[in-house]
């Protein structure tokens, strides 16, 4: 086996002071599928961004085929035969597949883009690698699995010999994952080298030849995959034995808290992204919403929280219509919300921890002294929450942007949980954070449930959904296609068939989620 890539002593410090890579050595052999594993925040993406020229390391060197190279832009990475498929796709949604694939290297005819040629190129490429895509489809209409194929083709067209896939399976259903793996194996046969990032160990065992494990920015071990067990890997990843089982008691559902009735939403291109959606969430219950991203979950959440206006359907909280209430009024009625993207909605990164913690209640009398804010009260309140939610920081005056992802999420969670919500909407509550923070957040969600909060949990992480939810609905194409009131009777594979729209329950089965 010939070593095709070597990264030596890579150290990366981000402007906020987080050391994402600490003298990391990383080596990949030609023609292998090399898994890079580690908890969220371990520094995997950072290491790959350095390889792809998106970030510059503070120290360290990169060797390709034994020759030292300096990669200071993606352009140079591509020239050196490195391609990367990012965690978040970088496609232009309004363009076709073919246009996306040739973007920047368009075939031209008399100065204009030769669309026919672009389609030809795309189809030829798809044929060669046996990756089936519709060259003329508009990217925005494609399912996630398809977008991923487009990304892979894009990289291959630019001559990628080393292909980096950053958590490619995180957004896929089990069936799509299988398909992806077959494609990866074919690429391997054709002589490509693949770096495969994941923290799903079963997949790593299944697909990879070797595995590099990272923890807290350091390389903590490299193995032949066949020579280690999942337990060995997970121990090294987390630094201790982990029980991924979530401890929780049987739920005791009470009255219906949130009722969604016949909700329909038409997007700006005239497509319905929510079709007649109806369901209820009861107090003391966690209702999970499973589904591939982009099947209406975002619209649903934004409508319930008030971020998005709607006109068809009804929302009822405790039996009262809340359709036209402002976000503030909804919050006052007891709706809390952990947003999907914490940096966009969850926090003001430039503000202090304390300022972020009081954001939903700064107008309350207890935080004000006449016309001035009550600094002492804000301080004691912040200290209490920092302690209660184990937010690691130097003080409550620290800017939120200085914290790690897990601790930023804890700030959001601390605020949203401490208001004593009647209804909690948790949208991807543990995405991209470490196991410790994940455990804490799961525990707190269950605590809230046991105190009678109704919880609506949206997550792309099947494992999380299955473990945490009491009952479950599946969304596909803007509709509820399945309802399960007993999760012990469903398998991930079965869920997958619903998520892909291959199966749909009867109207009567789905209607049970209204409890009426």
């Amino acid at each position, binding site marked *: 086996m010939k070593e095709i890539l070597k990264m030596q002593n890579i150290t990366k410090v981000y402007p906020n002071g987080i*050391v994402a890579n*600490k003298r990391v050595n990383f080596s990949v052999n030609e023609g292998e599928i090399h898994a890079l594993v580690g908890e969220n925040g371990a520094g995997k993406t950072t290491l790959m961004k350095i390889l792809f020229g998106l970030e510059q390391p503070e120290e360290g060197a990169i060797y390709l085929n034994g020759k030292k190279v300096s990669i200071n832009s993606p352009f140079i990475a591509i020239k050196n035969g490195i391609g990367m498929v990012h965690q978040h796709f970088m496609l232009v949604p309004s363009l076709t597949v073919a246009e996306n694939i040739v973007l920047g290297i368009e075939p031209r005819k008399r100065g204009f883009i030769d669309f026919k040629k672009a389609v030809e190129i795309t189809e030829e490429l798809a044929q060669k690698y046996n990756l089936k895509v519709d060259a003329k489809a508009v990217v925005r209409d494609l399912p996630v699995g398809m977008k991923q194929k487009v990304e892979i083709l894009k990289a291959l067209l630019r001559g990628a010999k080393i292909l980096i896939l950053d958590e490619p399976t995180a957004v896929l259903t089990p069936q799509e994952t299988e398909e992806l793996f077959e494609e990866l194996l074919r690429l391997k046969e054709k002589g490509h080298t693949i770096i495969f990032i994941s923290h799903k160990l079963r997949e790593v065992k299944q697909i990879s030849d070797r595995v590099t494990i990272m923890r807290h920015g350091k390389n903590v071990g490299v193995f032949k995959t066949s020579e280690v067990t999942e337990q060995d890997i997970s121990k090294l990843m987390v630094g201790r034995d982990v029980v991924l089982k979530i401890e929780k008691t049987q739920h005791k559902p009470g009255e219906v808290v949130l009722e969604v009735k016949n909700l329909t939403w038409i997007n700006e291109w005239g497509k319905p992204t929510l079709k007649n959606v109806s369901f209820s969430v009861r107090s003391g219950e966690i209702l999970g919403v499973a589904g591939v991203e982009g099947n209406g979950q975002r619209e649903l959440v934004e409508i319930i929280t008030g971020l998005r206006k709607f006109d068809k359907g009804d929302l009822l909280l405790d039996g009262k219509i809340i359709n036209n209430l402002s*976000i503030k009024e909804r919050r006052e009625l007891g709706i809390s919300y952990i947003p999907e993207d914490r940096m966009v909605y969850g926090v003001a990164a430039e503000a202090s921890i304390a*300022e972020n913690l009081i954001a939903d209640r700064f107008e309350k009398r207890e935080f004000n002294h006449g016309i001035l804010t009550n600094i002492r009260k804000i301080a004691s309140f912040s200290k209490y929450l920092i302690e209660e939610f184990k937010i690691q920081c130097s003080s409550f005056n620290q800017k939120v942007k200085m914290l790690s992802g897990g601790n930023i999420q804890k700030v959001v969670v601390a605020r949203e949980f401490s208001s004593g919500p009647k209804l909690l909407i948790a949208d991807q509550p543990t995405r991209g954070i470490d196991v410790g923070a994940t455990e804490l957040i799961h525990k707190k969600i269950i605590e809230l449930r046991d105190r009678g909060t109704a919880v609506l949990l949206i997550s792309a992480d099947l494992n999380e959904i299955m473990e945490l939810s009491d009952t479950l609905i599946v969304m596909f194409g803007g509709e509820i296609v399945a309802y399960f009131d007993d999760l012990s009777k469903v398998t991930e594979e079965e869920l997958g068939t619903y998520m892909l729209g291959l199966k749909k329950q009867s109207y009567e089965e789905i209607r049970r989620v209204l409890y009426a």
Partner: protein
Amino acid sequence: MHREVLFEIVRTAVAILISLFVVFLIVFLVSSQPTEALSKFLIGPLSKVRYFSNVLELSIPLIFNGLAISIMFQAKQFNIGAEGAFFMGAVAATVVGITMNLPRIIHLPFAIIAGSFIGGILLFIPAILKSKWNASELVSSLMLNYILYYFGIFIINYYLRDVNAGYMVSYPLNSSVLLPKLMVGTRLHYGIFIAIAMIIIMYYFLYRTKWGYAIRMTGLNEKFAEYVGINVKKVILYAQIIGGIIAGMGGAVELLGMYTRFEWQKLPGYGWDGIIVAILARNNPLLVPVAAFFLSYIRIGADLMARMTDVPSEVVSVIQALVIMLIAAESFMAKWRHTMVVKRAKEEFYVNNGGSLQ
């Protein structure tokens, strides 16, 4: 937190030093008496009480406009209508000062309140256009400035012009409306105390009241503010109204403190200067007087230099332009900052992990 403040201070200082250096170069190139010119520029303002008083006098309108712009910038509203609001504040004070006859104790405050009121109402226009129809406040406030200028000039020249004065000015203001001078032999007036009071009030308003909090959160992350339930549209409105009030107040104070008639035939430009002050002060009310003083000092210094030597006062524009450019350029000295961050991170790591990083 601490390090960031330090970094910003150093960055500003370096920007100022670089621009001063450029000015020195220019002076040495164009002047036949460079040392003379530079000494006038740098220490001229300190050489006489009257000159130093000039620095303070000029600081007053700069402070008002700096505060007005700062509060709007804090809400991320790039409303640059302070110029027009300031101008109309002065016009309003003129109207009150000429047409009414009241005891000083009522007349003077009333004139200032009238100026503030007009300023607030005027900047409500770009604000409401923004919050109702999402029209860029930058564009509408810029255009508003010119409308206000012609409107103000119209009022003064058609209704209040003193035809006997021999030049284009208004009738004299009633003496009961004028701000008293602080020191004989200078034009320094009591307006400076109003300016200081406004600095303190605005600081408390921004950092210690719920309204100021809402302004800052809206400015830092509007989506976040919306999501936690802050009425962002309302914040956008009142931040600009308050900005208008302060600018209008500044116009009234400037007129009543420095003049006995309305004499401006063109926009005085203090509103534009307010933008420079706000950028230098990082929109922090407590730093506004420092920035205003600095700007005022180099202006007066340059004036003295121009009067007594062969260097024109326009060199100040070079300083202003360079300082603003360097401060606005995010990546200016970013490398140095990153080195600091890395060094500290390494030290921390060294302490925690027994030195496996270095």
